């Protein structure tokens, strides 16, 4: 199924692009304040006369609010106000971003619970006090009387009641192509699996925080602590408060990790703004860890009943999946995206001639869910790769071989799959999946490792190796724009509407700008996450910044370069622009070191409005650059693991872990590897340790770091990297693909494959995380 290359308005890749900085592991520009204690995270932001907000949260998973008594709290000296739903009745529920999925509106979350509470942790009331400790005291004194209702705690059971007349299944998304039924009828063999992924999430080390103030003199609301999507959140907050977006400014300071969960619009973000407006004082809210674990988006929880039809050679004829997505109590900003993405990505890097999926979007009385790093792909890769392993086991084919037989070949690129993913048509833009697998096998020493593992198993050790292949999506469009300006000192500023959660945005964008313009990357200052500095912004998600913002920066910097060269050539150096180059901020004659030169600073000064030489030219050494992308760039990779299982404890030790990854073009390999290593550690959490457990009453069991177990240095192995640049994306001038999610995507799948091998039980792992208790159960069942 070959497709025409997607059309676009973007220039072709510039083969002569200088790459003094792109491709080099230069040190980060972000680091100095962060290693010297000068980072500015939300908790470190304060304003004079500020009030502290504390959220009173539901202790019930499901119930009707009978009464809320705040009189004791209000009597506490220093407690300024207590609000309930009645005080915010005019504020609409939090909207989701544009989605084509219909019928979700009734399930949006109100900023404070109205009539019913639907999960433990749901905001029910607010306390405002002079001091954070005092606010917590007062919150404890707010008496909330709830009449309990039966909770829904499992998404794969019969749907329950969200409210009279509304069930707990807002939608079922169906996708299909090809003749699935005919393929199953004709199949040589059919494998069927019942798979589950546990509820876990990003859990950044910094909890959420929001500090708002209203400047009545200018009638502007300022919100600090923004991240991920400042512009969208500005627009949503403005709409909810009935204001013009021009009177709401969001400011991102340092952000202690995002991973998809931080920076979505939550009730608290809106409430601090409203409170600052009404109470006439700055309002500060800093989430505590217990709150975070039951209030910030959860993710991942799904149960799949999936089957594959294959021919005698193990080639897939069709995949048929029905799955249940546990959305928790409300539909938040990301709508049904995680479920939709899962449904669209299950075929992975393989030829799947026929495919059918029915995805049931189910509400339960648990914390609402959203996107977490590799949303839908951690899940789909687990499902797809478990299927491939099952096919291999059923037909007695090697696990590597079955993948080779099913890969989409390089010659079929770009490959269009008749499916929508994340609301765009899925086109795999480029890739050599088989080629990367071969490289990974060689680097890992797969055959020798396998022989070694088999020798050890013969002596009684439960050691095994596994692999998982994946294709990702990155560079989510549709568009991004930046403004690049050189000032009269020669300093360069790139203003972008994206956000930084610590991944290295400033460095990478500076590297791209520096190469296109002809300056040192350390001269480039990247301003992000401020809605008052740039009109449009699209935020940080879906591994998009390097691709989208990087490409826009490249375009803007080339415009600035052209403008500088034109002026220098015409009015300063008596040359043509083609004779000139820009090196370290100085415009020089190509191949003539002794010729006169001028600096970018001089050009910038010459372009000051009113300056004589600027005659007839647009003032300022500045340009905007835009980049459009209708389709996503699709990086791909292979994970390989060696694990050792302790049969007595059910513990799993990762002995080796390789991530092979084709990124198209690595702007900063050190940072790419950093993304992979960090993603792998989070993936390992989801594979072995992390789970938001609930009891049968819907009471969360994982509300501290003693119960929600994140991997530490002893659990995470040294990750081996194989970065390849065999398949630069044809969709952007630099060939870029995103790096942020590659390390996490296939960890659950690869670890499951390796555990199966270690215990000699193909297909044993059907559920993540593989906790010691679950693995002991598997081992005991086999006895």
């Amino acid at each position, binding site marked *: 199924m070959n497709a025409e290359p997607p059309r676009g308005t973007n220039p072709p890749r510039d083969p002569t692009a200088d790459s003094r900085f792109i491709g080099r592991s230069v040190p980060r520009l972000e680091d100095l304040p962060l290693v010297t204690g000068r980072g500015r995270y939300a908790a470190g932001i304060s304003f004079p006369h500020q009030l502290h907000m504390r959220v009173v949260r539901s202790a019930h998973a499901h119930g009707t609010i009978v009464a809320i008594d705040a009189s004791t709290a209000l009597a506490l000296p220093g407690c300024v106000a207590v609000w309930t739903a009645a005080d915010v009745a005019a504020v609409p529920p939090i909207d989701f971003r544009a989605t084509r999925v219909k019928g979700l509106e009734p399930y949006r979350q109100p900023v404070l619970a109205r009539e019913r509470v639907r999960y433990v942790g749901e905001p029910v009331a607010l306390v405002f006090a002079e001091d954070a400790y005092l606010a917590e005291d007062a919150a404890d004194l707010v008496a909330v009387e709830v009449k309990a209702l039966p909770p829904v705690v499992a998404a794969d059971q019969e749907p329950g009641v969200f409210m009279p007349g509304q069930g707990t299944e807002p939608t079922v998304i169906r996708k299909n192509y090809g003749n699935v039924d005919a393929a199953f009828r004709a199949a040589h063999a059919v494998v069927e699996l019942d798979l589950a992924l546990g509820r876990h999430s990003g859990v950044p080390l910094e909890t959420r925080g929001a500090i708002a103030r209203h400047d009545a003199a200018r009638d502007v609301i300022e919100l600090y602590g923004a991240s991920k999507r400042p512009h969208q959140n500005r627009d949503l907050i403005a709409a909810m408060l009935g204001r013009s977006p021009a009177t709401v400014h969001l400011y991102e300071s340092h952000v202690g990790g995002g991973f998809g969960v931080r920076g979505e619009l939550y009730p608290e973000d809106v409430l601090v703004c409203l409170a600052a407006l009404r109470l006439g004082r700055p309002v500060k809210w800093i989430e505590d860890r217990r709150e975070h674990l039951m209030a910030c988006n959860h993710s991942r929880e799904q149960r799949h009943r999936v089957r594959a039809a294959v021919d005698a050679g193990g080639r897939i004829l069709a995949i048929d999946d029905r799955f249940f997505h546990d959305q928790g109590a409300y539909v938040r900003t990301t709508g049904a995206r995680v479920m939709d993405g899962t449904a669209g990505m299950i075929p992975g890097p393989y030829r799947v001639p026929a495919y059918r999926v029915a995805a049931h979007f189910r509400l339960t009385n648990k914390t609402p869910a959203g996107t977490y790093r590799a949303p839908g792909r951690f899940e789909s890769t687990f499902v797809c790769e478990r299927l491939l392993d099952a096919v291999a086991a059923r037909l007695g084919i090697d696990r590597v071989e079955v993948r080779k037989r099913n890969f989409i070949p390089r010659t079929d690129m770009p490959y269009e799959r008749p499916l929508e993913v994340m609301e765009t048509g899925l086109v795999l833009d480029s890739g050599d999946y088989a080629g990367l697998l071969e490289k990974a096998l060689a680097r890992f020493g797969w055959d020798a490792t396998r022989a070694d593992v088999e020798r050890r198993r013969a002596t009684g050790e439960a050691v095994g190796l596994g692999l998982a292949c994946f294709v990702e999506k990155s560079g989510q469009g549709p568009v991004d724009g930046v403004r690049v300006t050189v000032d009269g000192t020669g300093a360069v500023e790139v203003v972008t509407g994206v956000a930084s959660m610590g991944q290295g945005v400033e460095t990478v964008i500076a590297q791209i700008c520096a190469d296109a313009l002809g300056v040192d990357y350390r001269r480039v200052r990247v301003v992000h996450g401020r809605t008052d500095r740039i009109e449009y912004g699209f935020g940080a998600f879906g591994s998009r910044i390097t691709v989208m913002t990087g490409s826009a920066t490249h375009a803007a910097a080339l415009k600035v370069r052209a403008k500088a060269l034109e002026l220098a050539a015409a009015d300063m150096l008596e040359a043509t622009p083609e004779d000139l180059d820009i090196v370290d901020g100085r415009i020089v004659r190509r191949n003539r070191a002794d010729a006169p030169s001028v600096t970018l600073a001089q050009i910038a000064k010459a372009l000051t409005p009113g300056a004589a030489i600027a005659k007839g030219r647009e003032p300022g050494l500045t340009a905007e650059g835009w980049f459009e992308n209708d389709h996503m760039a699709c990086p791909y990779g292979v994970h390989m693991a060696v694990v050792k299982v302790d049969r007595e404890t059910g513990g799993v030790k990762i002995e080796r872990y390789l991530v092979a990854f084709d990124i198209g073009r690595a702007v900063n390999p050190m940072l790419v590897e950093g993304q992979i290593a960090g993603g792998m550690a989070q993936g390992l959490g989801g594979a072995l340790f992390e789970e938001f457990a609930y009891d049968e009453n819907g009471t969360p069991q994982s509300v501290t770091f003693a119960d929600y177990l994140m991997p530490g240095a002893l659990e*995470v192995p040294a990750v081996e990297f194989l970065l390849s640049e065999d398949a630069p994306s044809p969709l952007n001038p630099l060939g870029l693909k995103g790096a942020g999610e590659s390390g996490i995507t296939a960890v659950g799948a690869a670890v499951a494959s390796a555990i199966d091998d270690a215990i000699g039980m193909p297909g044993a792992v059907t559920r993540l995380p593989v906790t010691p208790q679950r693995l002991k159960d598997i081992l005991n069942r086999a006895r």
Partner: protein
Amino acid sequence: MSDKQDLVLEVNGKNYAVRVEPRRTLVDALNDECGLTGTNAGCEHGVCGACTVLVDGEPVRACLMFAVQARGRRIRTIEGLARGDTLHPLQRAFMAHHALQCGYCTPGFLMLAAGVLERDPNVSDEELLQVVSSNLCRCTGYGNIVAAIRAAAAEMRAK
């Protein structure tokens, strides 16, 4: 609860006169009373180690200590790790080895490692791994943190 006490905290060689309730944690007092916002609270119950500071040279979780308990003791925070403009070997090593991304856990790891290495730069690589395992990082996967601390230890031993 509101019986505030007058207290002098000695932080990074400077005295800070503060007035706090006995229940106020050291991390909150450092942030809000002393204006030293470099120490970050991560979990507030002693698991993640993001708030690690040195008290009389020993790594301490500042969320588990009350400010009043630090009376008369020498506190050292991330703001006091460099000597003027001269960065500590650990700070340089963290930058060189890409041992931080979002940076939130970084002050805790730096102070933890500084406490250990300034007492004994000869600790083994295996011991350093054990040290690193007492704090949590959500961004790096730890490999670069371990490498950075080992490199700084080597530099400190050579001095």
